[in-house]
Structure formats: structure tokens, C-alpha cells
């Protein structure tokens, strides 16, 4: 009986979390005219998805999001890795340096978006994917460096020493031993950075144009003066969530692996 109560509670919690996204999925798959019907599933239709990709050019926004999110991670990762390694191994900048880097992450985005716009305008990169990619890379870098620092700190310095007596330079030890060993950490950090960029709205809204909008901006534009196109919004949300579900599966495996990989002894 106690077990039943526990399970009921858990199911309630699951329902609270899962029902809204499930309803979004349902709304994306019924004709827009029946979106607000109280029937659970009045009719099946793919018209929302067709409309999204057809007249709304959702495919190109999707591609924009992939380019910007992936690009920013690839751009930020080497810098973040170097920064995290310097913090972890050489204590560069001491505690203050670490905190300074993290404090950048704590600034309200609104405080940064206008300066970012001004800078991009000066160099002529507003309304471009390149500009947004660079800005995302800069925004994610402190966070990535902080995560990687944790991973590097978990790698015993003995490993590098062993490599250096085995014949590598300090750089060689980093490249051949530290990086491969921290690969799960790099992957986890990369996926997190990807998700952050993927979901970002404010900078994307300010820094992109109609051709270069990312998914969050494109979805917001479906909120028109003629009302919210709820069907298409739902379809867009479903499509926006999909890669995140894949990514979180991936990240889960890698984070677990990252934790167990450290057991050198």
C-alpha cells in the first residue's frame, strides 16, 4: 500500500513534467483548426510540418541553428580547453582568475547584447551567422573552461609526468595523454555548449536578420498580428527538442563514462 502511494506520487510527477510536451506533440500532429479541441486526438495531419518547411522555410532556420551551435562549440573548445588546463594544472590567475571567468557567466545577457551588437556592427557582422557564432563562442567559453577545468583536475598529474619521462614534451603530454583521457569530458562540455547555443533567444533575436534567424527566433516569429499559429509553433517546438533528446542521451553516457574513466588507480 505504501509502495502504491509512492508510485502514484511518482506517476503524478512524471505526468506533470511529460504532459505539456506530449500535448505539444499532439497539437503538432492535428490540423491547426482542431488545435484547441478538447478531444485527445481529433485527427491526424502533417499539415503543420508541411507548412513549416514549405512557406516558413523552417529547414534553413534549422540549418542556421546547427551551424551556429556547432560552430560556436568548435570555435570555443580549443580556447576553453587551454584555459581550463591552465587553471587546473598551473593555477594561472589563482582563485581570483577562476572566479573572474565564472563571473562573466553571471552577467545578465541583456547587459551584453547591446555591446555585442555595437561591436558586430563596427566589424560589419550583424545579421550574419559568423557574427552570432563568434558571440556564442565567447559566451560559452567561460562555462566550458570551468567544466573542463574540473575534468582536468581529475586527471592525476602523474600521468603527465609519466608521459614526459617517457619522452614527450609538456605539450606532447597534454596532446597525447591529457586530451585523449579527458575526451568524455570534452564531449560532455561540447554537448552542453551546443544545447546552450541551440536554446539561446535574446542574442539571436538582436544579432540575426530574417535570413539568418535561428530556431528560437523563427518560432517567435510565428506569433503574428493575426494570432499565434499554434500548430506550426508546436511542430517547430517538437523539431527543436529532437536533437536535444538525442544529445542528452549522448551526454548522459559520456558523463557517466567520464566519471568512471577517472579511476586510474
Amino acid at each position, binding site marked *: 500500500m505504501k509502495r502504491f502511494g509512492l508510485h502514484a506520487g511518482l506517476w503524478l510527477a512524471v505526468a506533470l513534467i511529460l504532459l505539456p510536451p506530449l500535448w505539444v506533440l499532439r497539437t503538432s500532429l492535428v490540423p491547426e483548426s482542431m488545435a484547441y479541441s478538447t478531444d485527445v486526438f481529433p485527427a491526424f495531419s502533417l499539415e503543420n510540418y508541411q507548412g513549416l518547411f514549405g512557406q516558413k522555410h523552417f529547414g534553413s532556420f534549422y540549418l542556421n541553428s546547427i551551424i551556429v551551435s556547432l560552430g560556436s562549440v568548435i570555435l570555443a573548445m580549443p580556447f576553453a580547453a587551454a584555459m581550463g588546463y591552465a587553471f587546473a594544472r598551473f593555477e594561472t590567475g589563482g582563485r581570483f582568475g577562476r572566479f573572474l571567468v565564472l563571473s562573466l557567466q553571471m552577467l545578465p545577457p541583456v547587459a551584453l547584447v547591446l555591446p555585442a551588437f555595437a561591436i558586430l556592427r563596427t566589424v560589419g557582422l550583424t545579421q550574419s551567422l559568423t557574427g552570432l557564432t563568434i558571440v556564442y563562442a565567447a559566451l560559452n567559453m567561460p562555462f566550458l573552461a570551468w567544466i573542463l577545468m574540473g575534468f582536468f583536475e581529475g586527471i592525476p598529474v*602523474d*600521468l603527465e609526468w*609519466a*608521459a614526459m*619521462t617517457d619522452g614527450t614534451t609538456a605539450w606532447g603530454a597534454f596532446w597525447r595523454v591529457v586530451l585523449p*583521457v579527458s575526451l568524455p569530458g570534452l564531449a560532455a562540455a561540447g554537448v552542453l555548449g551546443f544545447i546552450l547555443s541551440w536554446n539561446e533567444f535574446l542574442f539571436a533575436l538582436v544579432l540575426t536578420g530574417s535570413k539568418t534567424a535561428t530556431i528560437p527566433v523563427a518560432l517567435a516569429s510565428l506569433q503574428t498580428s493575426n494570432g499565434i499559429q499554434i500548430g506550426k509553433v508546436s511542430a517547430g517546438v517538437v523539431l527543436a527538442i529532437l536533437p536535444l533528446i538525442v544529445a542528452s542521451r549522448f551526454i548522459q553516457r559520456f558523463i557517466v563514462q567520464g566519471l568512471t574513466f577517472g579511476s*586510474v588507480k
Partner: protein
Amino acid sequence: MASIELRQVSKIYPGSSAGVKDIDLKIADGEFVIFLGPSGCGKSTLLRSIAGLESITAGDILINGEVVNHVAPRDRNIAVVFQSYALYPHMNVWQNMAFGLRMRGTPADEIDAKVKDAAELLGLTPLMQRRPSALSGGQRQRVALGRAIVRDPQAFLLDEPLSNLDAQLRAEMRLELVRLHRKLGRTTIHVTHDQVEAMTMGDRIFIMKDGRLIQQGPPLEVYANPADTFVAGFLASPPMNLVAGRLLAEGGGLAFVTDGLSLAIPAAYREAYAAWAGKPVIFGLRSEDFHDAPGGETFAPVTLQVEAVEALGPENIVIGRLAGSHKPVAARLSRHFGAQAGETVTLHADLMPMHLFSPDDGKAIPRPRIPDAQTRRRA
């Protein structure tokens, strides 16, 4: 092949008391030496300095007579075996052992042959494809050794390589390391805080404390003639019995006196200790110098209130307090010595191997050296 010499080597960490100070030592080519000391005494720091993994603050490190202070670790051709083994977790056993050779650009067939040889020597052949995570502690230890051996370095530096093994495996590996050293003949420095390893493995021991080298010499010589109370206490288990008291001139001789106990100093030491008459001293006698029967003119009866008896099998360690005082004493007696806790027993202390230490700095008060007990018995 390498001789290693340290001249006035210091390593100081800013804002920390750790490190090493003014270390002078010489290790001959092919010698097996032990750096012994409690944790934090600087022995690992010294080892890493010799390997080039830590820069030194002052002094010179010489390998084969050449100063190598600024030579990178990879160019010193020295192999280090770490306490944690530091196996590369993303490589299998073969790759771990081959790594050093690959970094040095050794031809593939030569790498193959060398790794195979080392694997055979260490019994690792069936494990070559495994990752370190799939190996037992003892196996990892062997891989770490193998990784050092394949490179055929001019010296091996072993940083507490046995401390993560269980007792039985440790005893096996002790013998194996000595055997390997005999076979390979390379200069070896073995860092440990284990006195059994120190006594049994090396040609010479260097004893360190608080970043300083306190005493060096062949194990038995250091054992018989500890430089101070620290060495006296550290190099044996149970440690040398140390009792504070006073040296008094008595009749024509000297006696160590403490709480109703008076022990006549052997005549051979009278001259050496004469200057300390009337002064407080620390008296030192090893647990094995207590016997259950009198044995000669240097023997003196001692009454002990037994507090505990540790029956180890081959011998009994009798722990008690000297009658009339609260000074604890441990005596190593035969397994046939049947004392029980609570009893009062009379033991016979052989005072010939005794030492006196200065209570100010703990340094041994010099006295003529005696042949150790074994040689005395044979004579």
C-alpha cells in the same frame, strides 16, 4: 648506465614548508639505493627533481658527471615508476609499454621485440590487449615496471611502487625488484616509507626528515649506528626503546639512571661518554637486545611490568613499563617466553649495543663502534 650526484640541492615551494634543503649525495653507477622517510619528508620531491619533473631552487644535479639542471625529463633517459602507476588509461598494456619507445622513434619491429621481452620477463604476455582498468593492482604494478624496463633507461626511479599492494604481493615484488636490479644492473633509486623495504632491498639507505638528509649508509650499519633518535625510532618495528634519564658517574664508571633504575655503561664506552656525566641524556636500546637469560658481563637485569604480549608466531613482542617508572619499553623475545599481561618479569638487557642521545637535538653521542651482535656471536 649512470651515476647520480646531488650538490647542495634545494627545492623550496613558495608559501610552504615542504621541499628539500641542501641535499648532498652521490649514487654510484649500478647502485640500488633507498630514500627512506615519513610522508612529507621530501623524498618524492627529490626523486622528481632528479627526473627533471620539478625544477630545483638551488644546487646542481649531475648525471654521469654532467649538470642536468636544465635538461628536460625526456632527455635524461631516466624511467620513473609512480606510486599510482600512472598507466595511460586510454591505452592497452602493449600500448602503455610501447609508448616511450614510440616517442623516441624506435622502429616498429624493435618496439615489438622489446615489449615482448619485457612482457615475458614480467609475466604480462597474456594481458597485452587489456586496458589498465581491467587489471589487478599487482598487474598494473608490473605494467608500470614493464613500461620503465622496455626503454632500457640509464636509471630507474621508483616512487613508493609497492605501497598500494597487499602484504603478500608486496613481499613478492620486493624480491622481484631486487632480482630485476641484479639482472639489469641499472642505477636504481627506490623511495619508500617502509623500513622492511629499506632494510632488505638496497645497497645503501638515505634517511630523510623535514626536507633534509639525516643519515646515509648500508642498511645494517645505519641500523646499528643511528645518527639520531629519529633514525633510531624509524628504522625498526617496534622502534628502538628510548628512555630519558641522566648519566651519572658511579664508582669508577658511568651509569644511566632513571626512576629507580640504574644501568652500568659498558666499560668500552666510558671514555666516549665521560663528558656527559651529570647531564640528562636519552638512553636507547633495541627491542631485540632484551633477553630472557643473562648472557655476559654487559648484561643487566631489568624488571618489566608487562602490559601486552604480541605473539607474532616466530617471536613474542613483550610491551611493558620499566618497574618504578612509566617509561614504555618493547622487548623482542623468543616465542617460548611465556609472559602474560599484568605480570612482572625480569629481563636481561645486553647493554653493548646501547646508544646515548643528546636530549637537546636528539643526535647520537659518538661512541666507539662495535661489531654487530651477529659477528660477535660468530667470533
